[in-house]
């Protein structure tokens, strides 16, 4: 106590200690980073004439976007939208059905190490590649059209759903699991009674969310030829029909917003 009351005359300075203690290293890294940034920016080729032409084209594009044309290719648009919705429904249902066994197998608290590793690697493969890359592979395998799109989306759904499902299963309350095992129930019955009730609401929520993602992705994968509204969109761009493209984009926006609203509502109700 005596020391505390005696000391306030001389005030000690304090500063936040620097992240890197060595000043040479600290300033060297900072200056180095700035030089690299300057060099990197100057290395990007900027063609003024090309930008000017592009701006003009962009202006034309925007002005036709302001006058969307729903009528002249309405039939194609209709077919594209229906195809996209079909792809979304089929791929979501198939993907979810396939993801449940994979997700169960990828939960460490339910299975032995070999099964766990096998299921985890399926998930990793599915999640490594972006939908567009997978779509290109499937288009090469099955040709242009919605089949390639459905396979792509179903495959991507497995990775997404199985990973989140497995994480949920790993976090369930272990006590009921133990209790059901103690009754003499085997693996399948234990999963049915102790695991599924704890994750089913979340499974439904995730499926609805994935439906929403698949609809958006169905427009993207169409651009590489995997069917749906994306293919229709791609065709209009190739023909410079920007007014039709605008109509398609508006329809996609409305569709995605609607499913997002509905899926959000359903997921809130489930909680």
């Amino acid at each position, binding site marked *: 106590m005596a020391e505390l009351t005696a000391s306030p005359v001389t005030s000690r300075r304090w500063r936040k200690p620097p992240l890197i203690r060595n000043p040479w290293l600290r300033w060297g890294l900072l200056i180095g980073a700035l030089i690299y940034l300057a060099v990197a920016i100057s290395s990007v080729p900027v063609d003024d004439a090309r930008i000017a032409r592009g701006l003009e084209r962009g202006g034309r594009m925007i002005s036709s976007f302001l006058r969307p044309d729903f009528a002249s290719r309405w039939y194609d648009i209709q077919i594209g939208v229906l195809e996209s919705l079909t792809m979304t429904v089929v791929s979501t249902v198939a993907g979810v059905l396939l993801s449940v066994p994979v997700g169960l197998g990828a939960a460490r608290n339910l299975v032995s190490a070999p099964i766990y590793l096998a299921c985890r690697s399926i998930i990793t493969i599915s999640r490594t590649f972006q939908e567009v890359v997978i779509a290109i592979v499937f288009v090469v395998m099955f040709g242009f059209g919605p089949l390639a799109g459905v396979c792509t989306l179903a495959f991507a759904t497995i990775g997404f759903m199985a990973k989140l499902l497995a994480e949920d299963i790993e976090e369930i*309350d272990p*006590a*009921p699991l*133990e*209790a*059901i*095992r*103690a*009754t*003499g*129930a*085997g693996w*399948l*019955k*234990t999963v*049915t*009674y*102790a695991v599924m*009730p*704890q994750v*089913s*609401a979340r499974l439904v929520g995730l499926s609805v969310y994935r439906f929403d993602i698949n609809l958006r992705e169905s427009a993207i994968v169409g651009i590489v030829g995997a069917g749906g509204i994306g293919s229709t969109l791609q065709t209009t761009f190739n023909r410079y029909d920007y007014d039709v493209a605008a109509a398609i984009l508006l329809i996609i926006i409305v569709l995605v917003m609607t499913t997002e609203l509905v899926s959000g509502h359903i997921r809130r109700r489930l909680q």
Partner: protein
Amino acid sequence: MLRIEKLVKQYPTGDRALRGVDLMVPEGEVVALIGPSGAGKSTLIRCVNRLVEPTSGKIWLRDTEITALSARRLRQVRRRIGMIFQEYALVERLTVMENVLSGRLGYVNFWQSWFRRFPQHDVDQAFALLERVGLSDFVDKRADELSGGQRQRVGIARALIQSPDMLLVDEPTASLDPKTSRQIMRLITELARERGLAVIINIHDVPLAQLFVKRIVGLRAGEIVYDGPPEGLTPERLTDIYGEEDWGAGQAVAGADSAQEMDPEPSPIFAASTSNA
């Protein structure tokens, strides 16, 4: 009924939870297993139905050597061993009836369990048990709508519908208020007597155990250090089990405990709040 010989459990971490336990529980006898946290009580009862795999030693239920069974035969034997848990271990999103019927999972086939098409005999028995534990009006309520005491009653019904030969009971009252604790202990010991079950109850509350049980086994650091009647638990014996403490002062606390039970205000509110936590 149950015979345990030189049971040892060493966890992969190196902890020796059990160091050669020998224990016999004859038919119809209720044994309270007491001891400090970490003494191996929980491990011991989980070794009996091999939820925890023992390292060495033998366990016999009647003529069956549990420790030598294949996975398939083990599941058949588990049907004859009911288990009751500290935090009830009910499946909260299932109804009371589904939770009780889940005790029959070892007897029905997968599709019967999937579609909840249990044999009529099982359903009759479930209704009878729910009546016995006083939950007839809660059949289709979801388990998470019940208070702590009610949940434990469901847990008891689930264990009994297995038509077990013995019960393993893990801290049945640890999450309950004093009054409900006594009711649950009374229910378990009564049902055990009615059905002639061998019972092992892990319990922290020594005065409660002394009140309801004729034989007490004290476990310390994985070894049995006391096995005898409740009256034999002198302060010296308690020190053997739990370590140095002023056990006379503990008696005063026990007195305060029963005074709390005299409180005219019933305590399910307390039970509900602990179970929600």
